[in-house]
């Protein structure tokens, strides 16, 4: 399963970024192998449209679960019609966030 965690750094030890649209990195983790790739969010400093841009990115990446702090109104509107499961209120580092989600605990 492809899980995307928004993060302030480019690795599994980095903290979860509380913002979705303007997060610094998207860490896309394969939950079976815990292999990951980090994508820098080029829209983080855009004047507008960051939420939609980030939604487009994770849609294109084929992400199935999004773990983040909070999702803004535009991004939420963009993701509502998709099949991506949105998990908000996450904290800790990326690895912990994925493990916590997989264990079914949530936040």
């Amino acid at each position, binding site marked *: 399963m492809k899980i995307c965690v928004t993060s302030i750094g480019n690795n599994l030890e980095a903290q979860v970024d509380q913002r979705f649209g303007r997060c610094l990195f998207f860490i896309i983790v394969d939950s079976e192998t815990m292999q990951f790739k980090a994508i820098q969010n080029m829209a983080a400093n855009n004047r507008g449209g960051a939420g*939609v841009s980030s939604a487009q990115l994770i849609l294109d990446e084929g992400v199935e679960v999004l773990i983040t702090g909070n999702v803004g109104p*535009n991004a939420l509107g963009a993701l509502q019609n998709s099949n991506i499961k949105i998990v908000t209120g996450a904290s800790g580092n990326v690895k912990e966030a994925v493990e916590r989600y997989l264990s079914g605990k949530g936040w």
Partner: protein
Amino acid sequence: MVISVASGKGGTGKTLVSVSLALSIEDEHVLLLDCDVEEPNTHIFIKAGFDLLKTVNVPVPRVNEALCVHCKKCAEFCKYKAILASKTTVTIFPDLCHGCGGCAIVCPVHAIDEEMHRIGRLMHGSTANIEVIYGELEISKPLAVPIIREVKRQISNDSLVIVDSPPGTSCPVIEAVKGSDFCVLVTEPTPFGFHDLTMMVEVLTQINIPFGVVINRADLGDERVWDFCKSKNIPILLTVPYERRIAVSYSKGVPMVVDMPEWKEKFKDLYKEIKRLLNK
């Protein structure tokens, strides 16, 4: 002739100057345009009844799902991220759309047409010799420029036009001052007033609009505004003191030239000086 009034910094007295100038020119018809469409206030000072002149709409794309082949070309084209395309759906975000129409052009199967989306309105009112038109952006709508453009479309050649610009130095300000014969820069001798004045001077120099400065609250702050104007040969057209009485009348919606009619002469002189600088 079109005279715009701008400032960079907000709250320096653009509306004070626009309204006072309009009320002081008694022998000409004046068209006063309030382009500060995020918070227009000129109409508070000109005693007239105001009616709706027109609504302002921008075109936003509409996708015919039956024709869409989900190639994502529209979403890739849109620089404002107003379109999100997944493998199965296309979602439009009207508030992010600038109405350029590019998505409809790049769509290979002509699945996109446009519908009108209301973002604001123009209001209109007049006194014996002043006609006021102001734009008003709807709450939560982010696009000021199309409304400013529509306000300025009301300019007719036969009257003196005074354009009250929004604060700042970004797109809405450029749209407001664009095409004017002269720009009055209202500033105050504070660090922010001075800093933003230098930015506006840069803007106007680049778009080639002659300008002069009005220093409001002139006994505040320091000498930097004067030194700057002197070094750049920028004419100081008028100074207005930092006076409680001006603020009190303004807060009641009474323009200073109504409360203190002796100021009318000074604003008449300001107008004369602008005409002299332009050889008109």
